[in-house]
């Protein structure tokens, strides 16, 4: 569908001379496929989905061009259909045009410029349609996400708020200070959860609407920025935190996205620990291999059950009731990786731990 490439045109005619002449005339400007019957034509359409324009002769022995177009419309709705015909068939052509089977017809005998302008017009129409389809798809998915957001607001935002309202009401009648303190602690968790949700929503928006900015990244600097916070969390919760950076050459990518990815994976690794485990650890390795950045985040935490592992990147999906997840973290990670054309793999065993491996292709110097 790329505009920089030659337009791909399929021409169907039962007369081999016409086919040969057509190909000889237009092969420098377009990629031409020729077929002397409709069976062969369908094979081409199946094998070359980038064919955007079909020209067909009306008078063929087994079926007319109009019949052929009617037939293929369901299986190949996208290529633009044009009929080549003499005046004698004009009634059936008008009918076919009106029923939407045909974009345009070219009368015989045709001139090179007739064909050329018809192909250019048809291709423009094809590209516009393709763009519309792509935009519609985007819009459909945006609406679906909006729906999910609206639903999650009632739970993830309203939930903690209602809890706090309930807690305040309860606190009014409480005299026991120890009990009151316990309640305050739980209220504080609820507020933290709410804040987490809002931060993640902001991150989601930034990712969706923001531009990627490719620059040279010093992985040591990037990691030490992020690791500082986790080192404190590690000390407080008795989790051993180790990290290793192997970078022998410059790496170009979008720093904000990579920070967000690393931050989310580390947060999960630190949060989803087994409470009573003796030797808790989180290990992160960042290595530039060939042109790719490979990030491995490994923990010996609670693990992810195999029933959930395929869903963990879904929006608002939560695989555990442990801790205060928003259901947006890994969704954001996956979304950022899609934009960076990166991949993520996860290996996990319940009660043994989880390893996430992220691969992000580097951009060549200065590329945007």
């Amino acid at each position, binding site marked *: 569908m790329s505009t920089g490439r030659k337009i791909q045109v399929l021409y169907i005619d039962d007369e081999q001379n016409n086919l040969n002449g057509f190909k000889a005339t237009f092969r420098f400007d377009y990629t031409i496929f020729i077929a002397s019957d409709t069976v062969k034509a369908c094979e081409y359409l199946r094998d070359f989905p980038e064919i955007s324009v079909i020209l067909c002769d009306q008078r063929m022995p087994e079926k007319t061009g109009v019949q052929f177009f009617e037939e293929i419309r369901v299986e190949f709705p996208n290529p633009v259909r044009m009929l080549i015909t003499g005046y004698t068939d004009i009634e059936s052509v008008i009918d076919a045009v009106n029923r939407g089977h045909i974009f345009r017809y070219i009368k015989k005998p045709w001139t090179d410029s007739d064909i050329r302008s018809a192909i250019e017009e048809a291709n423009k129409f094809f590209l516009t349609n393709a763009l519309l389809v792509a935009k519609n798809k985007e819009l459909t998915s945006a609406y679906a996400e909006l729906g999910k957001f609206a*639903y999650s607001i*009632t*739970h993830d935002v*309203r*939930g*903690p708020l*209602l*809890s*706090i*309202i*309930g*807690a305040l*009401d*309860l606190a009014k*009648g409480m005299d026991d200070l120890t*009990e009151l303190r*316990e*309640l305050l602690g*739980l*209220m504080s*968790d*609820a507020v933290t959860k709410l804040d987490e949700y809002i931060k993640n929503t902001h991150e989601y928006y930034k990712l969706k609407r923001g531009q990627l900015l490719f620059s040279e990244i010093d992985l040591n600097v990037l990691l030490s920025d992020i690791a500082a916070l986790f080192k404190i969390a590690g000390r407080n919760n008795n989790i051993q935190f180790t990290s290793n950076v192997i970078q022998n050459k410059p790496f170009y990518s979008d720093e904000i996205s990579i920070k967000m990815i690393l931050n989310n994976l580390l947060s999960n690794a630190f949060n989803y620990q087994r409470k009573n485990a003796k030797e808790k650890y989180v290990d992160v390795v960042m290595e530039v291999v060939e042109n790719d950045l490979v990030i491995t985040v490994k923990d010996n935490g609670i693990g992810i059950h195999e029933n*959930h592992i395929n869903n963990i990147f879904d929006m608002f999906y*939560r*695989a*555990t*009731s442990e801790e205060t*997840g928003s*259901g947006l973290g890994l969704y954001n990670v996956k979304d950022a990786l899609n934009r960076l054309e990166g991949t993520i793999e996860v290996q996990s065993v319940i009660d043994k731990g989880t390893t996430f491996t992220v691969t992000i292709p580097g951009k060549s110097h200065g590329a945007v």
Partner: protein
Amino acid sequence: MAQYNKLNFIVIDDSKLDCFIAEKIIKNTGKCESVMSFLQAKDALQFISSATPDDLTHTIILVDIQMPVMNGFEFVEAFESLPGSVVNNYTIYVISSSINENDLHKVHNYKSVKQFLNKPLTSNNLSLLLS
């Protein structure tokens, strides 16, 4: 429910705060024989299916809708497939912060669910429900 002097309660909610609140409010009613909370519906289901039925005390279940792993609806479905002798010992109330119409309508589809309650649970609406 006036026929029972004392009631058992089971609270199922993934929010620790909501469990805490519910427990306190339930205890404050003075009509409670015992109260247990579960952060995971699966654990509650496990408990219910292995508990020995007690003819003298009835159990009220307060279950949240939106929970990870097993949500409130999934819990009710699994609960309804338990033997009748078990099911009859319980009355379920669904409690949620949801104002989603689909959720509200869905509640009516389950015969074991007595009523939908809005969060937060307060002494007032709990007393109303028990009177």
